[in-house]
């Protein structure tokens, strides 16, 4: 299901960024998103009709451009301009933009391109132009199977984002989450997977048993999650492509809160027994189980640092739920959260410098970040109930879920996915076909 097949990328040309005039500062929030024009990919009539037959899309060029435009807009860093204002036709713009025309509508960057049908394949070439400098910044071409057209849009978005911000993008990614339905007292939950923009939603389980907290492995082909199969809450491993599932380890009780190690070779999780929850790892290659914490308290929600040397987790060993960091062998346990309130669900940023968390204080839930030594705590969003942040692969955006308060009759409950920039700006709901919780972001698929 993770499609890596038939994707060939040609580098047509990439201009040195030393003299580029456009720079997007992604550390400062989206107060002034960069105005940019996404000219629809041009398409010849023969290709157009072939793709229409194949993909049931009238104009695949416009469809791909729409994906790019939507991605760039939702990043909050770019302001794609209204196509109605464009003066130059797509097929001409792609050859040589008339920069005065684009300047006139205040576009600082321009994306042009064309799509063609060549030997049953879809070929896209696109160019990124610096309008003020009147220069080409980048040109790339892709050839892929036609069914991959949405991914082409995501990859173009990632390339543009990377060229203009200097950081990797996060558009060619997927989200695994728990789809929810039914009354609050008897929720039905299924594992579901979708593209980062909500397209291609698929259910991976049927809803016969309660499932919780799915998380991708580093290559995004495996998922570890909690299932109540046969009323025994256990950590499972699922191969997305084959659908094969297996229990992780042979523990005499509940295992939960699983995550992969950064090399994908181990699963770290909690095992609850006799009122205590400790953290364990299981090596997936040799099946060796190691006990990492040993304390009468509740130790859970473990997450590795990206280099695998440290683990952050939450524990109530101080009397209340707080965040700790330790070495990967369980030594040198240090508490890092000291603010007012309870702290849970720590997740190490893929960049290594921050830990995102959930905080409960005076009846409100916050998503926040702190440095790995606990300093520099910053709360990004406050709500009635929200938790479980997961990082975008570039460490710039957090996705989490939010539940609503019910009314006096216990009605009005909902659970939705939301994302927010590390800056605290650009909070957005991510549309899902049903209620949703426990999102986990994949790695970049095209790397």
């Amino acid at each position: 299901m993770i499609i890596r097949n038939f994707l060939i990328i040609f580098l047509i040309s990439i201009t040195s960024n030393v003299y580029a005039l456009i720079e997007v500062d992604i550390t400062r929030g989206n107060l002034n998103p960069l105005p940019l024009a996404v000219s629809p990919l041009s398409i010849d009539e023969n290709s157009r009709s072939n793709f229409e037959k194949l993909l049931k899309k009238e104009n695949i060029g416009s469809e791909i451009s729409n994906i790019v435009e939507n991605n760039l807009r939702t990043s909050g860093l770019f302001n794609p301009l209204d196509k109605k204002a464009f003066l130059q036709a797509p097929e001409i713009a792609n050859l040589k933009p008339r920069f005065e025309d684009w300047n006139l509508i205040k576009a600082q960057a321009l994306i042009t391109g064309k799509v063609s049908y060549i030997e049953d394949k879809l070929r896209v070439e696109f160019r990124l132009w610096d309008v003020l400098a009147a220069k080409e910044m980048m040109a790339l071409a892709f050839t892929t199977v036609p069914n991959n057209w949405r991914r082409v849009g995501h990859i173009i978005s990632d390339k543009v984002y990377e060229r203009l911000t200097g950081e990797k993008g996060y558009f060619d990614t997927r989200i695994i989450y728990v789809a929810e339905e039914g009354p609050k007292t008897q929720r039905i939950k299924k594992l579901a997977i979708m593209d980062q923009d909500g397209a291609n939603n698929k259910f991976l389980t049927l809803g016969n048993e309660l499932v919780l907290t799915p998380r991708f492995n580093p290559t995004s082909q495996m998922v570890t999650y909690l299932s109540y199969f046969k009323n025994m809450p256990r950590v499972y491993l699922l191969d997305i492509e084959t659908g094969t599932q297996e229990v992780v380890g042979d523990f005499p009780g509940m295992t939960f809160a699983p995550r992969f190690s950064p090399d994908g070779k181990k699963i770290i999780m909690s095992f609850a027994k006799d009122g205590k929850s400790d953290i364990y790892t299981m090596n997936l290659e040799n099946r060796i189980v190691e006990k990492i914490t040993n304390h009468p308290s509740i130790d859970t929600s473990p997450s590795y640092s990206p280099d695998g040397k440290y683990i952050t987790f939450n524990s109530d060993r101080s009397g209340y739920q707080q965040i700790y960091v330790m070495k990967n062998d369980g030594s040198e346990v240090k508490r890092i959260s000291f603010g007012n309130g309870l702290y849970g669900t720590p997740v190490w940023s893929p960049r290594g410098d921050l830990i995102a968390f959930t905080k409960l204080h005076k009846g409100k839930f916050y998503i926040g970040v702190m440095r790995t030594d606990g300093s520099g705590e910053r709360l990004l969003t406050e709500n009635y109930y929200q938790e479980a942040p997961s990082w975008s692969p570039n460490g710039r955006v957090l996705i989490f879920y939010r539940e609503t308060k019910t009314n006096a009759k216990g009605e009005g409950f909902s659970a939705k996915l939301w994302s927010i920039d590390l800056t605290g700006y650009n909070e957005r709901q991510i549309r899902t076909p049903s209620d949703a919780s426990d999102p986990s972001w994949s790695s970049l698929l095209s790397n």
Partner: protein
Amino acid sequence: MRLSKIFKNTLLVLTACLVLSACATKKEASIGKIEGQMQGDVYTGTDTVEYLADGVPDRVFFATNESILTTASRETLRAQAAWLRKNPGINVVLEGHADERGTREYNLALGERRANAAKDYLMTYGISSDRITVLSYGKERPVDSGSNPLAWSKNRRSVTVKAN
């Protein structure tokens, strides 16, 4: 046809009125009773309680973030232990739960800790651990879907369920 429809509608309106007025009175009553249904933030009411046998309540309640058994909970568990001793063929599952005001993973652990507190107490009254299974649902299976302190107090519980 049309007449019957009109009749039906009238009936609907009538029942709606009845339901509404019933709700109104019930609401007043329950507001008056809230004080009496909680001690600190531990639920002391009986709304959600079912019975394993006559005089043997199936559940015990906890304070926020706590797994300590109250005096009332110990009484309930002693009744359960006596009933289990009288019925040696019955095994039980202790289902531990948390309210919605915590993170999912911590709540799973907390539910397990609560059910174990109940299990330990049953064991001190002579019930073999072989007859008891512990199962935590965390915040996944509330009995009351309300978002208020009373609803949360009903949801912080360990329920003893017959396993066979």
